[in-house]
């Protein structure tokens, strides 16, 4: 288990090999082998580490690889401390679960990509796998990091990879725009995150998660006042909203769909976007000490869930629907953490990773089959063309809609139940969201797989009219109509479908006779050491346990309700998009205003564009003018003044100073002009003067003596 640091390093090596050699020298098969091989090793190692963790007594294993920042004295609240950071990795239940998810799903998506990206050139192919491996490196670093700064390395690194992968087709303006947007919005979140890190060090004198947790556990819960822990948590949550696409920083995620679909599946559904949730769970002890921030988290999560789901109702781009769905599901997770159900949040994180990755890969398969068509209005009836994709996607859809016994049901229900216990208003939001989720997902299924085929016609051996601008990365040349994807793509789909079915079984709640194994497994990660029995978290957990006991009946009732809501959504979608499509048109016409509002995503992008972006840009331009006119103007003005004064002094110089000088010269020349008459050139006259001198001196001698 001491080799857990190898888990991130392996994909890193893969990235380095592909980056330094692959782009120039490797064939597609070689770069794919390097990438998948390194990921496979990492996944194997993850499983090995996880098994070891299960088998060991201790639930926490630390590995310090090296000193990163050696100790430097710095004052903290408690006096002078030492700012020191190690390259330290930690395997505990939470990170154990995460490395399984990341390396497992990562491996599947690598395999999927070998086929999906086949249309790229050799160099582009290697580049893609280099980025993808690099992403896994950073993501695993993020997950395994034992202190905030190592986590931040991963945090920023995945942002970089996200930037690179969204902008993978950099020749497309929209793609590079989207990449930039993602990075910048994330940076805004990082602003909060780093401030949180600073405040944590200032308060606790360390950045190690467990030491921070221990320090926080010793402090009182800030129920009444907005104290320092609340501030820390608020800062951290700002970071989380950026990374996990919550209000107000969610706008980058839908745009991120410009990237290749496997990227969307891996980064923007399964792993990276959940980093925010993971981070909040990591700092669970801190958050439990800041109930006010918890409320904020829950409210933001709930509202985001609802809002994103409502936008998802009207979108027609298949990947955008899934993107808003992701935002919505992430909202769910934050809702869970916000109400203190960290385990439920983490559980949903895991199940969501499975079914959302599945859905994305499925949509990728569809897009692939449709020759890069993403608009669902041009699909339909694909069920017959691609049965494997259809079946697996259906599994995913049922899972996300919360139909038992699929994975989504257990995790989502856990969240709903915990929310219900905590706050009824938020619960109503969540239930509404659940209904909408079922509706838009089945709308997606209906528009894609049911009904008649509405796409472009195709002929054998001939091209077609759609998607020409992407034909350079379409490996098939001429398009022969929708078709099932190759095994390299359907294989991962099936594997993920299995995951989406069974992943929930680790968390069957007590009300259904299960042990909620995952919650107990994860518990050590959310609390400080069990020795501190007086810790408030333990108490809270105990209370929760009690509540569990007393409300089995209520829980069952809530479950039934949520299933009903989900079925209602499904039924509505079935009615509107399969049985009576014209009704959908009518509804759209009736609520045209609302429809436009949703279609345009509440105009949030436009709002940001006109305020933040334009404000910054015009500020920049204004300051530039200021720089040129005022600051530089002052300098040039000084220069001009100097010149002017030098001109004045030049005049003074010429007429007064020079005048005086010339006067001396003039008088000298004038007087010499007259005096030079004495200079006769006659030697005897000079001798006469000498004689005169002698005469005078002798006379003086005579007179004075």
């Amino acid at each position, binding site marked *: 288990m001491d080799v857990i640091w190898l888990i991130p390093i392996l994909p890193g090596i893969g990235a380095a090999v592909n980056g330094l050699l692959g782009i120039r020298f490797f064939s597609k098969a070689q770069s794919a082998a390097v990438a998948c091989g390194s990921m496979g090793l990492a996944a194997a190692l993850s499983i090995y580490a996880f098994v070891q963790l299960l088998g060991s007594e201790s639930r926490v294993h630390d590995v310090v690889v090296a000193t990163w920042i050696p100790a430097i004295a710095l004052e903290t*609240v408690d006096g002078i401390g030492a700012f020191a950071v190690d390259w330290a990795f930690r395997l505990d239940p939470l990170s154990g679960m995460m490395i399984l998810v990341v390396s497992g799903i990562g491996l599947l998506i690598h395999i999927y990509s070998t086929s999906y990206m086949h249309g790229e050139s050799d160099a582009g192919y290697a580049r893609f796998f280099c980025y993808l491996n690099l992403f896994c490196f950073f993501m695993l670093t993020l997950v395994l990091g034992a202190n905030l700064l190592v986590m931040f390395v991963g945090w920023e690194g995945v942002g970089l990879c996200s930037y690179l992968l969204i902008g993978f087709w950099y020749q497309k303006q929209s793609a*590079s725009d989207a990449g930039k947007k993602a990075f910048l919005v994330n940076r805004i979140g990082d602003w909060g995150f780093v401030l949180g890190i600073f405040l944590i060090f*200032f308060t606790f004198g360390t950045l190690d998660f467990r030491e921070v947790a221990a320090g926080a556990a010793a402090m009182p819960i800030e129920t009444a006042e907005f104290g320092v822990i609340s501030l820390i948590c608020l800062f951290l949550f700002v970071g989380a909203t950026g990374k996990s696409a919550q209000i107000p920083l969610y706008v980058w995620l839908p745009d991120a769909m410009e990237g290749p679909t496997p990227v969307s599946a891996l980064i923007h559904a399964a792993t990276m976007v959940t980093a925010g949730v993971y981070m909040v769970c990591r700092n669970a002890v801190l958050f439990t000490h800041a109930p006010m921030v918890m409320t904020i988290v829950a409210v933001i999560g709930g509202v985001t869930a609802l809002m994103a789901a409502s936008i998802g109702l009207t979108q027609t781009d298949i990947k955008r629907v899934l993107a808003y769905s992701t935002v919505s599901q992430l909202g769910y997770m934050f809702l869970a953490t916000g109400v203190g159900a960290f385990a439920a949040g983490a559980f949903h994180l895991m199940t969501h990773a499975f079914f959302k990755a599945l859905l994305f890969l499925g949509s990728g398969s569809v897009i692939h089959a449709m020759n890069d068509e993403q608009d669902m209005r041009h699909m339909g009836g694909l069920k017959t063309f691609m049965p494997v994709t259809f079946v697996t996607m259906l599994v995913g859809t049922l899972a996300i809609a919360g139909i038992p016994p699929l994975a989504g049901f257990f995790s989502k229900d856990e969240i709903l139940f915990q929310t219900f216990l905590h706050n009824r208003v938020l619960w109503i939001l969540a239930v509404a969201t659940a209904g909408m989720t079922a509706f838009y997902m089945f709308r997606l299924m209906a528009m894609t797989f049911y009904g008649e085929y509405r796409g472009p016609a195709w002929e054998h051996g001939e091209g077609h009219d759609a998607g020409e601008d992407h034909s350079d990365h379409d490996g098939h040349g001429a398009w022969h109509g929708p078709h099932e994807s190759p095994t390299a793509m359907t294989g991962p789909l099936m594997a993920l479908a299995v995951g989406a079915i069974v992943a929930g079984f680790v968390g069957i709640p007590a009300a259904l006779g299960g042990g909620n194994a995952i919650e107990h497994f994860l518990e050590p990660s959310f609390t400080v050491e069990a020795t501190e029995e007086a810790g408030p978290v333990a108490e809270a957990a105990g209370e929760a346990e009690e509540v569990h006991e007393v409300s089995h009946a209520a829980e069952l009732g809530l479950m039934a309700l949520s299933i009903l809501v989900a079925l209602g959504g499904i039924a509505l979608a079935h009615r509107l998009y399969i049985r009576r499509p014209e009704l959908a048109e009518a509804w759209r016409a009736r609520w045209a205003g609302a429809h436009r509002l949703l279609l345009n995503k509440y105009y949030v992008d436009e709002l940001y564009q006109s305020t933040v972006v334009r404000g910054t840009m015009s500020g920049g331009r204004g300051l530039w003018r200021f720089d040129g006119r005022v600051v530089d103007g002052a300098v040039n003005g000084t220069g001009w003044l100097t010149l002017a004064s030098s001109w004045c002094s030049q005049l003074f110089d010429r007429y007064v100073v020079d005048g005086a000088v010339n006067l001396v010269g003039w008088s000298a020349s004038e007087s010499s002009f007259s005096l030079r008459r004495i200079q006769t050139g006659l030697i005897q006259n000079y001798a006469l003067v000498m004689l005169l001198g002698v005469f005078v001196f002798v006379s003086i001698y005579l007179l004075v003596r």
Partner: protein
Amino acid sequence: MSNVADFPLLSLILFTPLAGAVLLLFVNRQSEDAIRWIANVVAGIGFLVSLPLWFWFEPQGAQWQFVERLEWIPSIGAEYSLGVDGFSALLVLLTTMMGSIAILSSWTAITERVKEYYIFLLVLQTGMIGAFVSLDFLLFFLFWEVMLVPMYFLIGIWGSDRRLYSAIKFFLYTLVGSVVMLLGILAIYFEHHAMTGIYSFDVTRFHELTLPVGLQWWVFLAFFLGFAVKVPMFPFHTWLPDAHTDAPTAGSVILAAVLLKMGTYGFIRFSLPILPEATIEFVPMVIWLSIIGVIYGALVALAQRDWKRLVAYSSVSHMAMVMLGMFSLNPVGIMGSIVQQINHGISTGALFLIVGIVYERRHTREISEYGGLSKIMPVYAVVFLIMTMSSIGLPTLNGFIGEILILQGVFVVNKMWAAVAASGIVLGAAYMLWLYQRTMFGNVDNPKNESLPDLNIRELATFVPLIVLAVWIGLYPSPFLRRLDSSVMHVVSRVNAAYAPLNADGGADASAPVDGSLAGGQ
């Protein structure tokens, strides 16, 4: 080591470039390739002889190492005294390295007056090294002024467009600053004589002096003007974009990588330890100017259409960050400040090289002239990407270490300062990424760009050491930080009483908690 101590290593490092310049004087100006070879070899040797500063320097040893002392002008007590601590040793290494890179980078870029060009570069090199290794204030001032002249000619002769305007602006700005600084030096000199009866310019003596506060105040202002112009800090920065834009590539690289460090070096070596009380008084002013500089530089960079000018403004922003860390007056902040100086030298130097490469091929710096270069010059794009990331402080690269230390250092002093300054990193990412997008991404719209050659071996060779360093500092900065320990602690112990008795119980002088609830474990 004992025999090493007697070896005049610093003089050797100092005069190697000058010797090369003298050697070049005797080379026929027509044989340009020979001149280039000689200059490159001399610069390479200059770097090699400076390497012992890394290997022989003892992080735990005396504060001043490799000290040399000779009489210079005994009548006024000026000495030829050289010596380095960790800080200046790193800067000397940076100088010799960037110097050789700059010289290597101008192989094909300079075709006129080749001989003079390399002579000026080498003389400049000696001037810069001299300023970093001088322990005598007058000697420092001498080298400080020596640097000015070659730079003036480099900009004025081999520059572009408005080179004369820029060169004169650069010269006047710095000259005004340094004249005022000289007054400050003399004030200390005479005050030192009045207090001790010894005429001396010895910096180490000055470091132990406690000047009257009133005098400190004025001298600080004088030094501030001299150094702030060089840094450059916010209201004194306007020479920088012009000078950078119009300088030849190597000139920009040297300017960004080393010359700007003169200002910050001056602050850490002179202002802070000699004038501690005044420094503390001026902290808010300097900090706010720095914060303005961070955001202002970034915003103005965002509006630029000229590639090189954009990088120049980013320089303003980064150097303001350096000042910010320095005036937090605690070990982490100052350490970060120093590391960030080195980082800035690496990443901004590289960015100027990057601009220079396309400028040499296309002779334009307009960003709109470019686009889609990723496709045509993939290696170039990768190098640019790495340096962009280094510049915006991506973890695992060097910029991050500097920024995180600086901001952490400032944060413990004042949270508001850190919060405002940290927003600079958002803007920093904005202008760099936008630049990257506009130049590297998209389609190749401009037909002139279609056949640009990618980096050749020589050009790649100028980047490799920078990339290696960027990754090294990012992943394992300990060797650098350990070397800086003693210099940082020396400075801090002068300006911040809280850190003076570090070996004693640290809790004695803890700052007061922000509010009652923060008093952790109690």
